[in-house]
């Protein structure tokens, strides 16, 4: 398996605990420190899962507002970054469940390929995410192609691929988060990989 587990960026729990404690008392500056450190990862997740820069931006804000409201429930059992990441995943999945009609309106008919039009996922799309601001790797073209191909995946397949193959969650964890059976998730993951292989082989 080539997926990488969620990164542990600077896992200094004492420093995190101090920041959280300050933020709990209404110290926005302390919370800004947390935001600056974690926003890149939260935004990347939101952008890849939604394939929509505007929605990723809204969701990123929602994630941090929710984190602010829930600081009292953070006990330090997990790392702050992991805690925030879970909030982000839940936020994106919740929004996806409750707002599919809005997403469907955003997809322009001309953006759909004939193949994609045959998929039953309401959120299937061909529009690529906004690529500005990406930390560019060496093989930039390959990775930009991959990000575009991921963005073009049907919603269900994209969700599982991002969570499993990029973020490193296990099927049982994704099953708990999405409410889908592991067998269904596995099938969606395989489908996503197949579509990506085809897209990148063109």
């Amino acid at each position, binding site marked *: *398996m*080539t*997926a*990488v587990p969620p*990164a542990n960026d600077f896992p200094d729990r004492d420093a995190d605990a101090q920041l959280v404690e*300050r933020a*709990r*008392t*209404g*110290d*926005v500056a302390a*919370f*800004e420190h947390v*935001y*600056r450190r974690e*926003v*890149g*990862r939260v*935004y*990347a997740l939101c*952008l890849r899962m939604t394939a929509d820069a505007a929605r*990723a*931006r809204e969701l*990123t*804000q*929602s994630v*941090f*507002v*929710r984190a*602010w*409201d*829930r*600081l*009292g*429930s953070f*006990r330090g059992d997990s790392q702050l970054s992991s805690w925030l990441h879970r909030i982000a995943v839940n936020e994106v999945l*919740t929004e996806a469940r409750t707002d599919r009609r809005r997403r469907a309106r955003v997809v322009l008919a001309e953006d759909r390929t004939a193949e994609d039009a045959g998929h039953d996922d309401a959120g299937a799309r061909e529009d690529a995410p906004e690529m*500005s*601001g*990406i*930390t560019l*790797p060496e093989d930039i073209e*390959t*990775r930009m192609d*991959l*990000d575009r191909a*991921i963005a073009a995946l049907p919603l269900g397949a994209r969700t599982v*691929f991002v969570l499993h*193959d*990029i973020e490193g969650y296990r099927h049982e964890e994704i099953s708990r988060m999405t409410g889908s059976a592991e067998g269904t998730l*596995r*099938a969606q*993951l*395989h489908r996503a*990989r*197949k579509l*990506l*292989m085809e897209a*990148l*082989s063109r």
Partner: protein
Amino acid sequence: MKGEREHIAFDTLNDYADGVLDERSMSIVSKHIESCSVCAGQYSVLRSVLQSAAQLPRTLAPPDDIWAELKESLDRRKEAVLPVIGTGHIVSKADQRSPGATQKRWQSPAFLAVAALILVIVSSGITALMLRDNNAQRLANQYPSVRAPGSAPVPPSVLPVGFTMAEGEYSRAIGELLQAVDAQRSRLSPETIRTVDRSLAVIDSAIAEARNALVADPNNATLVDLLSASYQRKLDLLRRTSELSSRI
């Protein structure tokens, strides 16, 4: 799983790549790939996709102005804070700049109980005054069954479009905080729990009244502000309660 002489099914190839096949199946697939150029080619492309995905950057630079908007939102959420015990005045932003003092006050369950009561009295009093308008009151009486979001499903209504989204956000945040508080009830004294529950009930009542009035008069900006403030009070009370229980 097919035999060695047939091509490997794509699902099996994925399971092989993920390392979730049993030892015997892993061995069969491995041997097959060594001798079958078709499956070897497919597996190579699959591996390439998985490796590329694993190497994608985990962080992407967000738009620069997210924090400015977020900070505004957080500052607004800080506006509705509980009054200082014994004085009844609302805690100012200047007071909030002394987090240590504020924190010590909040560490007392007795303070929370008294402060919550003062909050409820002040907020419900303001709400009652605002709703004393005859028209709003009359219309509010037409919807006696309305309950506040977070404690029961909201009734069918026609609220201003913009506020409907805001209400959804409030409801979601309140629902989560209610769950958090419920999970932490065992940490609070019975007296504090009773006080918090009473306070929530009064705030819910104020929300219901303001909401009814707004349904009847959706263009009334004052009612929008009033309802927003009531939701914010509930959110803040729950947040403070959650923080308190986490410190005990």
